[in-house]
């Protein structure tokens, strides 16, 4: 759950009275844009991406204009701009118009939780406005602080002093930056970054920090972000339709973490346990439709609903239904297998029978009862299967499932479909 840009960033910053560049949304009229240019001299036109998108500047996705003609030209160029970063391709939906903030100094500032310090940390440098990781370490300060007392003015003052920051920027930053802890801590954030904070000069000649960009991540397990009244659709692009449907079932009892791996995958693997999830996803690679962790002893009803969603999206195209986990400690195998078997029956009743080979690798409480229930269901559905206990190496079971998938693709799917009198 990530948020980028000033359109919403400025609204969040207003909650702690932190100044931000003036911003107009995509609905801004020509007159409003003209007025902004007139007052600010120049404006920046930035595409709006839902969710988290980094390094827009380097990709030429920030337009600059000093007249309305150029502003509209940039608007047209960027309104539906595509941005590829790493494995993620994002498509813009609108632009913002942000008033220029003339300044001599640019500051980078962020708050995050550090696994090195096991505490929240502030990261600051007065060499902002560029990729921070490219700066030498001595030009950055990472300062851990006590979460019980929070980020204090002295943390900022000491860090800037150690960095030999220009004296004139220290006081305005000390007065303003520590307020961002309130925003971070009170609204369930796990990262907050402003780059750059530009030090604008007021008419009285004083410097004031102005946020000229904004990024943050919210902790999915912390409901505090809901107090911000951010429309949920802003986070929608973070998840596929399938992931969103599963996430609606997300509760603390029973994991329900899923990712789509390959929309054209042929092995659908409900996986139990974080470790199994990591191992199985690694070994299945692109053959997997999804990566999942359904461990944590989900109750029958939840497991049934999750399985229904998984099967609905992925079973039609799959050669192999692969149920895999280690030797469960507290997940009741009977309850989870019963739920999956019932959901499989539901899937066949609702969408018709499919040619699927079922491979199972599992251990844990009520194992044999669970396997027997699944076995009876597969017998009644006429599906071929192999079940392995926890004394078979999980990786070997994965390899077996991969080989079955290859055989199913080669001829098994066709043979099974013919036997069942259904379409391949």
């Amino acid at each position: 759950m990530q948020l980028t840009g000033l359109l919403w960033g400025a609204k969040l910053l207003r909650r702690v009275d932190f100044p931000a560049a003036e911003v107009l949304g995509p609905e801004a009229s020509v007159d409003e844009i003209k007025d902004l240019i007139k007052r600010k001299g120049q404006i920046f036109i930035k595409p709006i991406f839902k969710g988290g998108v980094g390094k827009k500047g380097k990709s030429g996705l920030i337009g600059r204009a000093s007249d309305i003609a150029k502003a509209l030209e940039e608007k047209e160029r960027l309104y539906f701009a595509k941005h590829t970063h790493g494995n993620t391709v994002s498509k813009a939906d609108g632009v913002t118009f942000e008033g220029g903030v003339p300044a001599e100094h640019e500051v980078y500032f962020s708050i995050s939780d550090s696994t090195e310090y096991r505490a929240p940390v502030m990261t600051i440098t007065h060499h902002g406005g560029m990729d921070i990781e490219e700066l030498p370490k001595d030009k950055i300060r990472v300062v851990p602080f006590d979460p019980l007392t929070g980020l204090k003015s002295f943390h900022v003052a000491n860090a800037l002093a150690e960095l030999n920051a220009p004296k004139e920027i220290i006081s305005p930053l000390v007065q303003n930056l520590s307020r961002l802890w309130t925003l971070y801590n009170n609204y369930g954030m796990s990262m907050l970054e402003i780059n750059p904070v530009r030090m604008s000069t007021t008419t009285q000649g004083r410097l004031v920090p102005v946020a000229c960009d904004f990024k943050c991540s919210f902790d999915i397990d912390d409901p505090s972000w809901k107090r911000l009244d951010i429309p949920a659709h802003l986070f929608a692009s973070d998840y596929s339709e399938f992931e969103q449907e599963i996430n609606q079932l997300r509760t603390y009892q029973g994991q329900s973490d899923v990712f789509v791996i390959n929309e054209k995958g042929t092995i659908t693997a409900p996986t139990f346990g974080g470790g199994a999830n990591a191992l199985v996803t690694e070994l299945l690679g692109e053959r997997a439709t999804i990566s999942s962790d359904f461990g944590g002893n989900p109750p029958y009803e939840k497991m049934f609903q999750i399985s229904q969603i998984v099967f609905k999206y992925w079973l039609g195209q799959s050669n192999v239904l692969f149920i895999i986990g280690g030797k469960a400690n507290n997940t009741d195998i009977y309850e989870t297998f019963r739920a999956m078997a019932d959901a499989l029956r539901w899937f066949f009743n609702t969408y018709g029978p499919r040619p699927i080979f079922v491979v199972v690798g599992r251990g844990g409480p009520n194992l044999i009862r669970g396997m027997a229930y699944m076995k009876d269901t597969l017998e009644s559905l006429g599906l071929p299967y192999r079940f392995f206990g926890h004394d078979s190496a999980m990786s070997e079971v994965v390899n077996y499932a991969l080989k079955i998938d290859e055989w199913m693709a080669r001829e098994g799917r066709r043979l099974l479909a013919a036997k069942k009198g259904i379409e391949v």
Partner: protein
Amino acid sequence: MHKKGAEGFPYYVGINSLAEVATREDRVCVLNILGTESRSVTPTSHEFSGGNVAFGTSPGRTGQSLPTKSGPIPVYNSVKEGLAAGHAFSTGVVYLPPSGVKDGVAEMVRANKDLKKIIIVTEKISVSDARTIRAICQMNGVDAFGGNALGVADAWSRVRMGGALGGSKPEESLIKGSIALFSNSGNFTTTIAVYLTSEGWGTTTSISSGKDVYIHFAPREFLHAVDNDNRSKGSVIYVEPGGYYERGLRINKPTVVCVVGRWKAKLTKACGHAGSLAGSGDDARAKEQWFMNYFGVDGIYTPENPIFSKKGAVVTNIAHIPEALTKVMALNGIKPDFEPRGSLSLKCWFGNSQGLVLPDELDVKPVEAVAPYNEQIEIISRQIGAQFPRQTMKDASGASMMDPGTQVTKIHNLSILDASKYSLEENLVFALLKSFPDQTEKEFANLAFNAFVHMPGDPVVLAADAAREAESSPNSVLSTAVGIIGKARVRDAKAASALLLDLFQYEKIESATNHFDYSKILKKLSAEQKKALSSGNGNHLAARIISTLGKMGGKSIFVEFVIEATNGKPSSDALLGAIWATLGWPALMKRKISKASFLNLPWHSKIFSAIIGASVPSKKHEKESLCGVPFTEILENWSFTEVAFLSLVGRRPSTIELFEFTLLLGLIISNGPGTISAQGSKGAVSADGPEQPERVQINKCVIGFLTHTGFAHGGNGYEAIAFLIDQFKDSKLQDPGDRKHGINLRAIADKYSKWYSGYKKSEKEAGNIDYAKIPCVNHPVFKGKEVNVDPREQFVSRLLEERGSYNIFLDFYHNLVRSLFESKVTKNVYCVNVDAVIAVILLKIFWKALAEKAISGQEVETAAFTTFLYGRMIGCAAEIDDHLNRGRNMDTRTPASQVSFVG
């Protein structure tokens, strides 16, 4: 700010040696001890650890306790209360929901100055709460484990604290040895421990660290404690991507590290630079490299390419840990703790290729599982029949479902459209056994049904006569008859089925129509058992059944057994039991049906026979014939579908009539569990209490179905027939199946459309919007297009067309919907719905008799209603059997809070 702990840490660490993590001296307090998860886990931990849980808390439940085999654990409202009651503890275990964890930790820290350790089992704790928890514990000198941890365990001291490491049998995983175990994954903590035994390694202390952003007890602390633990000669660490907990470690004892999750790097979505500031990234590859640097190796250990040093090895597959560990330890001169136990090779416990020929390498055969699972599999394999979990079955069914989109109902996952291609006897078998009979089985089924349909002088038909004469509706007449097929009427047949099941259940017979040498079983049969199967001095019906069996091609182990056991003089009921045992055996052995269902098969069978038989007045049940057809002829040459037709029409159907009648019955099978007839069946089962299935009266349940039909449900088919009769009364139609009928159907349709247009207009002008609708056109789902089609009607029409069957009434209906549109009565072309198909087939059957006035309109109405009952008894038999197996006692009732009073 933190308390002073172990040297060398910039934060508080209290534990110096692994031997201090889980000791016999530790006393535990469990927060939310009566929560669902704790209730199942804590007793095992307590018993395994010698009774180490001092008390638990659960607000408002002071005075309660959690029972365990080591005695009850007292429960208090709060930690303070528990301490005040004289209990002491050093370790807190948190099972609270995520939002309550921070407060729970604060409560324990504040209330108990002796607190040393906290284990947080809860998942999905927010990062903001986790950082606060860390700060609280640091300030007060408490070691925290988790969150999202499965706890800690010590195989030497036999102590488990926190979560369920080792599940319900911790002794299977926690085997004493020399390896310390640390894992980000709770499940892998014990999975790895089990894997280690395959190379002869046991464990000292196992720690499930959790994998939240904040890991309070991380590898740095673990390795410090390993160094100070003389029991631990080496260690295994399992880590996943994310976080810098493994960077800059000092590893002094031989260690194997497993890093899994390279793929996760692909899922990372960029957001700012903060995450990458800390250095070279924290993905799996980075972590592999950190550890390779520690160990001085230049690659990942695999069995094919074993790269390791005296310091350790890095693997990316947990299955490689044991072998890598053995090699690393060997370089250090350390031998395994015990002889290797088992292996990690592929071992299949259950398998079936369903007749497919797999390549040899994939055709893994099931092998005996390790103890104790082999015994459990043996017990399960000796359990006969399916066992369905019981649940509330109100408005739910495991037998039928209707797709609201297509309006097509499925029974046992088969569309009724497809089921309508099968005969009545095949569908009745399918309803009860979930698969259609083969040719031999079909002959057995026909024999079983037809043998009991002829009931001269039987109270069943006499009672039906009485009800008929009292002008009861067809469903009431048949209810009266079915009421007589009580338990006593099927006692002998059920007893025969039960005896055969008892004698043959462990003989691994897949099909009772195959050959089987039962001579040994026959020898052991007692005189009393033989007597139960016998007819005494001979039985006329049994002799006829045996005679018919002799003329059939197929054989049955059970029928032959019964005949032989009784010296050729079995009772007819024993034969019925044997026939149904034959038919039900494969479904029972494959666990498609339960034992209770198997034993009820003869009862269902006799009821089906009675429903058909009682439709015929007693006077037509002559001594040797039914409706004038010799009974022997029926037994030997008639199908049950033909007998059903005979009971309604009084003659044998032609080939095309048999096809159309079969189709008709199939279409009526079911409309899902919400229909009134299904509800009646289910309510009747529910009221008898399906949790004791032997007490459920099948005949009473069928009466439930029958009484839940009536002139509005089942009896309404005549409305369309009457409509059609009215349209064709002046047409001089001779044969509704003749395409060359010479009748201008469009003219009849146009005439009616014109009349209906005027009628509709005048009714609307009079303010009556409830004017009469034309039967069997339009449908609430299949509407709104320019030309509408009910796919079910389309399906049947195509089937009829394929068979060369013409039906003038159906043709007329298609003319009518077009005419109604063209004369602007309707806005688009309405569909002809599936009910029309039922009406036109029935009318076609009776047209000739009607035209010749050999049959009255009243009799056609009775026949139409009865036909509905014949078709629907298939679906309701499936519902009754399903509810009997899955339902709970009185589960169809509606709670008082959900019903309303209309005064």
